[in-house]
């Protein structure tokens, strides 16, 4: 993620033609909101789907739908092939060694709950510690609290610096022999910080500590290779990478998944069932009880195909340009303070405006067609850390334009005029 040189910054920004072309794949970006063109800057909450993904899902429903792993008839075989084909696409996309390591879930939250319940319950006893970063989303906090309560393990918080980066010195000091699990996000949804996952994983592997990484905010922004990162568990959601909702992935190192008991029981996750004895299905199926989200998994596969068809290196550097442009624009608005300024962060800006509550900002921006997220972003500990009740968050994706950042800035100026904000 190279920074853009200053001479480019001072030029008037025009969105590259390649981006305008990509935008044509996303029909929703043509919406009009309150008589203004939609400016969608809530990609941290959910990204939009390209037509290619919608077409794949529709084609599945029109031609191939059936249940998977069950029938001998043709449709069931086709559905199974598409569904398992998508799993292989996921494996290759994140650099896992085997499809046995790719568990379909309903999303990041379900994936982390699976690890907490299955791995956590079996590997934690009274007095053990779970380290959780101060910048976690509630999805990587609450399941661990529930397991800590059950097992008697203790939650210990890894502190963060004022710029929103993880305090790695404090982290290293916290790594004592009682620590069994470390939970950290790859990218903070509230701050945009990119955490040094590889460094964390190496330190943990040396001490036989399991790493559970929430990758929800990373997966849509830059390439992720779980083997290179060296993590034990990595969770993400389809709808944060231009796929559908209702599908997510738990990557788990095969050796660990093998050792774990299933979290949910039901059909498709067993080899044989009698009332005396049950044996579990092989990986990854022992973690996939019941009829899975078939269309959504196939849609996720299509999202991966779509992302692979793009020049991701270009998109990554373009998103960094968007971020720099947004920083520059926001700095010109009176009373604005950006929360989270860590080096190398993704294209996301959380900010507060002196004396104006984020919900008022959000409502006024919505009136201008600009969609942002306001509130605590399911990360209350982050808000407490910075002593603020909430923030406004503009989170960008590769299809956003410089003109949209201008629209955001114009709308924010209306807010500061209305509320008479001074610096």
């Amino acid at each position, binding site marked *: 993620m190279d920074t853009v040189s200053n001479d480019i910054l001072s030029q008037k920004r025009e969105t590259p033609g390649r981006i305008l072309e990509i935008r044509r794949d996303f029909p929703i970006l043509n919406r009009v909101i*309150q*008589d*203004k063109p939609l400016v969608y800057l809530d990609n941290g909450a959910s990204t939009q789907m390209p037509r290619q993904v919608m077409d794949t899902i529709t084609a599945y429903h029109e031609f191939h739908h059936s249940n998977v792993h069950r029938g001998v008839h043709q449709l069931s075989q086709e559905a199974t092939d598409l569904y398992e084909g998508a799993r292989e696409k996921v494996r290759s996309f994140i650099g896992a060694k085997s499809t046995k390591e790719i568990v379909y879930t309903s999303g990041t939250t379900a994936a982390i709950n699976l690890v907490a319940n299955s791995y956590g319950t079996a590997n934690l006893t009274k007095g053990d510690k779970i380290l959780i970063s101060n910048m976690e989303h509630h999805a990587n906090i609450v399941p661990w609290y529930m397991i800590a309560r059950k097992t008697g393990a203790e939650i210990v918080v890894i502190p963060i610096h004022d710029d929103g980066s993880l305090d790695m010195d404090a982290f290293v000091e916290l790594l004592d022999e009682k620590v069994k699990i470390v939970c950290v996000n790859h990218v903070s949804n509230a701050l945009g910080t990119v955490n040094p996952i590889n460094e964390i994983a190496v330190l943990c592997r040396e001490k036989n500590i399991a790493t559970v990484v929430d990758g929800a905010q990373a997966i849509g922004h830059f390439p992720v290779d779980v083997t290179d990162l060296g993590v034990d568990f990595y969770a993400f959601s389809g709808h944060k990478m231009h796929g559908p909702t209702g599908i997510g992935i738990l990557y788990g190192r095969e050796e660990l998944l093998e050792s774990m008991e299933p979290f949910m029981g039901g059909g498709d996750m067993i080899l044989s069932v009698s009332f005396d004895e049950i044996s579990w299905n092989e990986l990854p199926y022992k973690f996939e009880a019941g009829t899975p989200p078939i269309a959504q998994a196939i849609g996720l596969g299509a999202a991966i195909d779509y992302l692979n068809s793009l020049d991701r290196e270009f998109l990554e550097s373009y998103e960094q340009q968007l971020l720099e442009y947004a920083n520059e624009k926001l700095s010109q608005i009176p009373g604005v303070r950006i929360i989270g300024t860590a080096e190398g962060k993704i294209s996301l800006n959380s900010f507060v405006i002196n004396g*104006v*509550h*984020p*919900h*008022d900002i959000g*409502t*006024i921006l919505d*009136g*201008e067609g600009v969609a942002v997220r*306001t*509130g*605590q972003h399911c990360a209350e500990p982050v*808000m407490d850390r910075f002593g603020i*009740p*909430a923030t406004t968050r503009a989170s960008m994706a590769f299809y956003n334009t410089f003109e949209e950042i201008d629209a955001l800035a114009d709308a924010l100026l*209306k807010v500061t*005029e*209305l*509320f*008479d904000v001074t610096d």
Partner: protein
Amino acid sequence: MLLTNRSKNLYQEVILDHNKNPRNYRAIENPSHFAKGNNPLCGDKLDVYLTVDENNVVTDVSFVGDGCAISKASASIMTTLVKDKTIDEVHKLFEGFHDMATGKIEPDDDPKLRRLRAFSGVKDLPARVKCATLAWHTLDAALKDKEIVSTE
């Protein structure tokens, strides 16, 4: 500044004024009624204090809290309206306000709502109705607690 009509309807001068200079923004020592209100969705927090005399008349009312302009202005205007009213009158005002904020009645339908009409704009914004009604719900809870206590 060219704001959309919707924002202009919502952020009227009276709301901006009460947001900036909230009335009766203080705690009451030894209130006869008190309740904490919060909207976990957005983190808004509001404490409402009341002093009600033996004739069920609100002789003093105040609030302290953090929230958006809508919730703060609503709390401020509420305190100016319920003072010197009987609990019955307060309940009727709350009902009228609630019906107006949720679009069941128009502000012109009821002369009591004249000074609350600035909030009629929230009916178009379901996500913001709770901001406008938080103070009133908290006041209602405070008064209900007292009613329970007084029946013992």
